[in-house]
């Protein structure tokens, strides 16, 4: 595309998936026990969206990638240290909760305001990327609201592929039921894409990219505005871990034939 795209990736942070999570009731609603102590990662789907954004920018000279992230500033700094080694981007930080219990409408409002405030933003070149849902709230609602607030009505969710044409139009593959993809063409930016996993592998670390990114990261974190996102709006009757534990029958030192017969009978039954 002539002049390139302006690609804004929205992404929060989530606890490392290997951590044990325990809900508690905090002063402003449900929260995670020791949330501030849990190691965090960039939300996995936003992570994929960032790779795809960087790849698209690389293929379209003149493009630029921003990462707009709403998260506690200190935790975000730790996470950005890692992702900054991967792909070039400019960070726009918003200091707020990373909780899955924060209202998606509040988060969307903060993200949309941060995008609108990007100097030199040209909506005719704007592609807003993000994960199709988060690994915390897991609602799949934030990105649509960001799009609505920005006046974008070409929206795609569960995206696995975007192919841009030289005239700025593009083809999108979205996940639909039955392990299939819906194929759409869009006349061009502005558009919003909530990414599933895409097709790209995680890029290798690149120290030069890391050094270039880090020059902008610390100032961005220092400038991070506090966000008002919270859990207001919902009344939680309970938040609990599933307690069900199954009585597992262990079958060992048993001939393979016998195990196979049992499994086959179970499948057929």
């Amino acid at each position: 595309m002539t002049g390139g795209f302006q690609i804004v990736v929205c992404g929060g942070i989530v606890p490392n998936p290997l951590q044990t999570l325990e809900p508690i009731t905090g002063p402003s609603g449900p929260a995670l026990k020791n949330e501030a102590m849990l190691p965090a990662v960039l939300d996995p789907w936003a992570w994929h969206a960032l790779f795809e954004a960087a790849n698209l920018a690389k293929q379209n000279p003149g493009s630029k990638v921003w990462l707009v992230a709403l998260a506690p500033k200190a935790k975000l700094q730790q996470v950005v240290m890692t992702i900054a080694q991967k792909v070039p981007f400019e960070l726009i930080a918003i200091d707020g909760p990373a909780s899955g219990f924060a209202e998606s409408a509040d988060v969307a409002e903060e993200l949309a305001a941060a995008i609108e405030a990007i100097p030199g933003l040209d909506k005719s070149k704007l592609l807003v990327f993000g994960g199709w849902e988060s690994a915390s709230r897991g609602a799949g609602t934030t990105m649509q609201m960001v799009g609505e607030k920005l006046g974008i009505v070409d929206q795609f969710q569960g995206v696995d592929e975007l192919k841009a044409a030289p005239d700025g139009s593009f083809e999108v593959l979205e996940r639909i039921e039955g392990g299939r993809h819906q194929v759409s063409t869009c006349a061009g930016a502005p558009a919003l894409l909530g990414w599933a996993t895409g097709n790209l592998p995680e890029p290798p670390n690149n120290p030069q990219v890391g050094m270039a990114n880090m020059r902008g990261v610390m100032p961005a974190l220092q400038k991070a505005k506090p966000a008002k996102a919270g859990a207001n709006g919902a009344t939680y009757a309970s938040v609990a871990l599933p307690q069900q534990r199954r009585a597992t029958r262990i079958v060992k030192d048993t001939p393979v034939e016998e195990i196979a017969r049992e499994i086959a009978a179970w499948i057929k039954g």
Partner: protein
Amino acid sequence: MSKVLVIAFAEQDGSLGKAALEALAAAKQLGGEFCAGVIGEKIDAAADMLAGAGAAKVFGVAGSDFAQPRYASDAAAAEAIAKAAGAEIIVAAGTSRWSRVAAGVAHRLGGQIDTHVTGLAVENDAPVVTRWYYRQRMMAQMTRAARPWVISVDPGSFAAWQGAPGSASIEAVDVTLGDAAKRTQVTGVRTPSSGQQTIRPEADVLFVAGAGWTKKQPDGQFHVAEAEKLILDFVDNAKASLGSSKSLVDQKGEGQAVLTCLSHLNQVGQTGSTPRHPKGLATCCHGEEPHVVGWRFITERRAINLDANCGWAQGKADVLYVADSFAVMEKVNALLAE
């Protein structure tokens, strides 16, 4: 109870799909009168089903502009129906089509939204929804005072409504789309290039392949081709759906030996899907518990791996077979093929 509206998209033949009928049953659980709205190219058969289920009014947006699952047209249609109905509670099935627009519609209505709802009850004359957070690791029950409140129910969470169609008198809602709403055109549907259809949401059995299939076996060699054949034979013989752990599908990007039949579309848990099959058989998934949290909604679970103390299988599977998956699956396939 607030004014309840069920919104559904008509299938290509004009009828309602299973997920829409499940959402209809969920809305009926709320009790009292409800209205319905249906969107699609042809909506008569769907409207008759909604009338048969007891919808007091059926609003409709029909025409070729609304055949495509497209954000701009679907959101405009759903918004118009919700406003025409004066809806306070809007229930719809969390299909890919509705999930694309649901939050945008809630935003346009000035309302709030909850998605992936797996349970619905009424307390103090208001809906109480059950949904999961942190990728099915904790469950919350919650309600909201704000209206309109959009509730998307997860397919497979409710028994589908069953009954005879009625005769609907459709109240047509006029929605005119400008050129700006037609910048996106849906051109088709593509199935994965792996050739064989391995994802079957309607299957009775989910087969979960773990990373162990591509590791060195006791003879010190990789047997990836053999593993792929065993897995696909089982999927074919048992008419099963094929799922995978995250680490197994990630290997493609890491340059390791891979099962070519798998893509990220097969992944369950974490960044994958949360399937709801009656039975699940996990193989070679030792040590991959965090990656198969999507396993939570499988009713009967069995696992085959080499570690009797596997923390993922213990307490989570009904039966754990401590055996070599290659040997067991070969025999199982032979028995299923008989």
